[in-house]
C-alpha cells in the first residue's frame, strides 16, 4: 500500500503520521502543499495535524483552498482513501469531503490529554481492527474540536453508521459525542483524536495502532 502525507507550512504532525503509517508497513511519500499533483498510484492520502496556515482564520480554511487540495478532492472523488487527523479533519470539513464543522471547544481552552473513545463502527478500512463498542484511549490535542452539524446530517450519519468514534467522556462539546466521521462511501475518515500518538510501546499506549494496521491489512488482503 502507498500513502501520501500532505505537508502544509504549518503542519506539525506530518512526520508523526508518516511514522505510524510506515510502522504498519505502508509506503509513504511526503507531498508539499504547493504541488499540483499527487504521486501516481497512491492509495491513501493522509492529512496531518498541526496549524496548516496558522489557523488564524477558521481552522483549515486556507489549507482547503491550497493547490494540493484540489487533487485530494479529485482522489476522493475517484474513490481514493483519505485520512484526516485533527487539523486534517478540519481541512476535510472545509473541503466538503466530510459534513459538519469543528467549532472552538465548549470550554474555550486548548485540551491535550488521552481520552476514552468508543469505537462506533468497524465497517471501514480504518476501524476493522477494533470491535464495536470497544473503549480505547487516544490522545486529543486541539482548540477547535467541537463537532457540529445540522440535525439532519447528524441523523444521517447515525442511520448510515458513519460515526467512526465517539467520546466516552465528551471533552469539547461535540454533537452526539462525535470524535470521527466517515464519508458516504466510507473511504474518507476525519477524526480529532491522534491515533499516531498511541501507536507504539514508547507512547505509553497502543490503542491507535489498529487504525494503521487495519489499513495495511485491508490492502494486503485486496
Amino acid at each position, binding site marked *: 500500500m502507498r500513502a501520501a502525507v500532505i505537508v502544509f*507550512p*504549518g503542519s*506539525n504532525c506530518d512526520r508523526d503520521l508518516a511514522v505510524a503509517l510506515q510502522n504498519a508497513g505502508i509506503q509513504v511519500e511526503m507531498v508539499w502543499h504547493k504541488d499540483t499533483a499527487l504521486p501516481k498510484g497512491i492509495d491513501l492520502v493522509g492529512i496531518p495535524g*498541526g*496549524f496548516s496556515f*496558522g*489557523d488564524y482564520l477558521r481552522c483549515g480554511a486556507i489549507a482547503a483552498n491550497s493547490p494540493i487540495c484540489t487533487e485530494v478532492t479529485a482522489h476522493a472523488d475517484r474513490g481514493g482513501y483519505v485520512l484526516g487527523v485533527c487539523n486534517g479533519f478540519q481541512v476535510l470539513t472545509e473541503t466538503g469531503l466530510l459534513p459538519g464543522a469543528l467549532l472552538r471547544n465548549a470550554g474555550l481552552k486548548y485540551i*491535550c490529554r488521552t481520552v476514552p473513545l468508543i469505537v462506533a463502527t468497524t465497517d471501514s478500512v480504518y476501524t476493522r481492527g477494533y470491535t464495536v463498542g470497544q473503549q480505547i484511549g487516544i490522545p486529543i490535542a486541539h482548540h477547535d474540536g467541537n463537532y457540529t452539524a445540522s440535525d439532519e446530517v447528524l441523523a444521517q450519519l447515525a442511520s448510515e453508521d458513519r460515526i467512526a468514534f465517539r467520546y466516552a467522556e465528551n471533552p469539547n462539546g461535540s454533537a452526539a459525542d462525535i470524535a470521527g466521521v466517515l464519508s458516504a462511501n466510507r473511504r474518507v475518515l476525519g477524526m480529532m483524536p491522534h491515533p499516531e*500518538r498511541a501507536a507504539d510501546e514508547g*507512547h505509553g499506549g497502543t490503542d491507535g495502532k489498529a487504525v494503521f494496521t487495519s489499513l495495511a491489512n485491508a490492502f494486503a488482503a485486496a
Partner: protein
Amino acid sequence: MQDPAITEDLIAAHGINADEYAEILNIMGREPTFTELGIFSAMWNEHCSYKSSKIHLKTLPTTGPQVICGPGENAGVVDIGDGQAVVFKMESHNHPSYIEPYQGAATGVGGILRDVFTMGARPIAAMNALSFGEKDHPKTRQLVHGVVEGIGGYGNCFGVPTVGGEVRFHPAYNGNCLVNAFAAGLADADSIFYSAASGVGRPVVYLGAKTGRDGVGGATMASAEFDDSIEEKRPTVQVGDPFTEKRLMEACLELMQTGAVISIQDMGAAGLTCSAVEMGDKGGLGIRLDLEKVPQREENMTAYEMMLSESQERMLMVLDPAKEAEARAVFDKWDLDFAIVGETIAEDRFLIMHNNVTKADMPLSKLSSSAPEYDRPWVPTEAPAPMEPVSAVDPIEALKTLISSPNYCARNWVYEQYDTMVMADTVEGPGWGAGVIRVHGTDKMLAFTADVTPRYVKANPIEGGKQAVAEAYRNLCAVGAKPLATTDNLNFGNPEKPAIMGQFVGAIQGIGRACETLDMPIVSGNVSLYNETDGQGILPTPTIGAVGLIAAGEEPILGRAREGHMALLIGDTAGHLGQTALLAEVFKREDGDAPAVDLLAERRNGEFIRANRDVIKACTDLSDGGLALAAFEMACASGVGVQIDETDQAMLFGEDQARYLVACNFDQAEALFIAAGQADVPIKSVGRFTGNTVKLGGSEASLEALSEMHENAFAGHFA
C-alpha cells in the same frame, strides 16, 4: 522627520546614567545622534549587557568533556553521543508577561525556540517555569490564564512538546510574575551554527517576518522596575506569530543544509541592533546596514525605530555570496522575506545608513565587549533567626492542606493546555518528575527538569542555590537519566540594592558549587534583574533547567508502584522543618533556615539510583512536602494506596535533601538493601503500597478522595 535633540531627560529616558553617558561621549568623541543613543541604550541595558551580573557569572563552571559550546552563544550545546548534540537554554520574559500576559508569554516561547534553531537544532522539547502572586491578588487569575494560553498558543502551533515545568504562587510575585521558558533542540554535533561573522564584504541578510514598531525599547523596559505607569508600557511588548516562526525554523534548517550560512543570529531583545553587533563583535568585523532595504510592515519607520524594534520571527545572517540563489529559493518556498540589508566591513565600525543619510556611525566593538561592567556593592544575607517550635497537626489534615493549595495541587489544568505529545516521542509528559522524550529514531532518551525553591534561596542564598541544582539532579536521576548539563535563569530584584545583590552573589556561589560537584556545568542562561514593583522585590528565583541522558540500552525508570510494593526511603532524614511547605502552607510561616545540601551525598545517592535501575520499579525525589507528599504523589500516580509507618511530623514533612522514595517488590528490596550497604547509601523501609487509602502514622483517608482533591484544586482556584 527631525530627530529629537539629545537632552538630559532623553538620556535618562533611555536608562543611561550620567557615568555611562560620559563614557558614550568619550567613545564617540562627540554628542551621539538619536539613533546612536538608542543603540547604546539597547546594548548597555541590564537585559542585554549583563553589566551587574557578568563579574559573578564568570565564576560558574561551564566546561566538561560533554560540553561542545558553553555560555555566550544563543544556546548551550552538549554531546549526547553518536554524533548528536542537545542544544538548550532557558530565558525569562517576565516584564512583558506582566504587562501583557498572552503576548508576553507567547513571545517568550518564540524567543527561546529561535535561540535553539538558530544554532542549527530542531526544537524537540519545551518547559516553562512560572511564578505568580498570591491566589487572591486581583491580577493573579488573569495572569495565570493569559500566560498559560500564550505559552500554549505559541508552542502548540509551532509544534514542540511541552514536557515539564513549574508553577508557583507567592505574594512576593504580586507585582512581578516570572515566565521562564526553556527549549531544547537536537542537532548533529558537527553542524552547529554560530554567530561570529567572518569574511569582509559578505552580504548581511535579513530573514523572516517584516519589521514593525512593536517592542521598540523592550529591552530597556525589561531593565527597570515597575511603578504605576505600567499600563503605558504595553506598546513595548511584542506580538508573536508562531506560524511564521514555524516556517522560519523550517526555512533556516533547510538553508543551513545548503552551506549558505556563514553565521546566523536571531533577532531577540534589541532586534537588529543586538544581532548585528553580536555577529560583528564575535567575528572582529564591522557591519554596515542600509535600512531602506529592511522589509517593513509599517510606513515611515525611522532608523531609530528599525534599530530598536523587537518584532518577532526575524533572523540576521552572513551569507556565502556564491549560494545566494539557492538561499533565496528556500525562503521563497516558505513565503518568507529574504533581503540583503548590508555587508560585513573590515573596520571596527557599526555604520547605519537610511536613504543614504548616515544615522549612526560608531565603533562596533565598544558596543558589546566594552559595555559597562559593575561590581555592585553587596552584603551577605544574614543567617536566619532560630526557628520557633512547630505545633503538631494531624498528618492527613496537613496533607490535605498541601494537596489542595495552589502550590502543591496537580497542574493538569495548566499542562493540558499545552501540546505535550506532538512529535510523537514523548515518553513521560509533565506531571511526574522529569519529562522524558525519545531521541527520534534512536534508543536514547533525554530527560528535562526545571527547579528552584525560592523560599530556601531567600533564607539562605548559598544553600538555596545548591538546592535548586540538587533537586534538578535528583529529578533526572529518578527517571534513570545521567545529568549532563544545566541552564540557569536567574530572576532577582533590583541589583542596585546591596541586600538583593547579596542574594544574587550567594545563589551563584551555591549554584556553582553544586554544578561542579554534580558534574552538570552551566552551558547557557539568562539573568533577569529589576523584578520589583514600587520597591518590593520578588523572592530570589534562580530557576535551574537541566538535561539528562538515558543512553541506548539503558532502561529509564518510568514505572509506577503496584499493590504490595515496599516503600523504601533512600538518603538520611533528620527532620528539617525550616522553610518547608508544611510551615508555609499549613502554618503560614516562613521561618528557619533552608535545609543544608550535602552535595557528596546527593551525588552518591543519585548514582545509586541510576546504578540500580533494574530493581527500582518506581522512583521519585523528595522535595517540598517531604516523605508525606512524595508518598501521596506516587500513590496517586500509581492508583494504589500507601501506608507510611512513620508518625513523627518532622520525619513525615521534613525537607532534608538527597532523598528518594522507591517502590519495588520484596526480592528487589532485598537486593537494594545489599547494594546500599556496599555503596554506603542510607536506606530504610518506610511502609507499603497497598489498598485504596493513604495512611500516614495513625491517620488515614481514601486515596480516591485525596486524588480528586489534588486534581481539581487548580481549576477550583483559578478556572
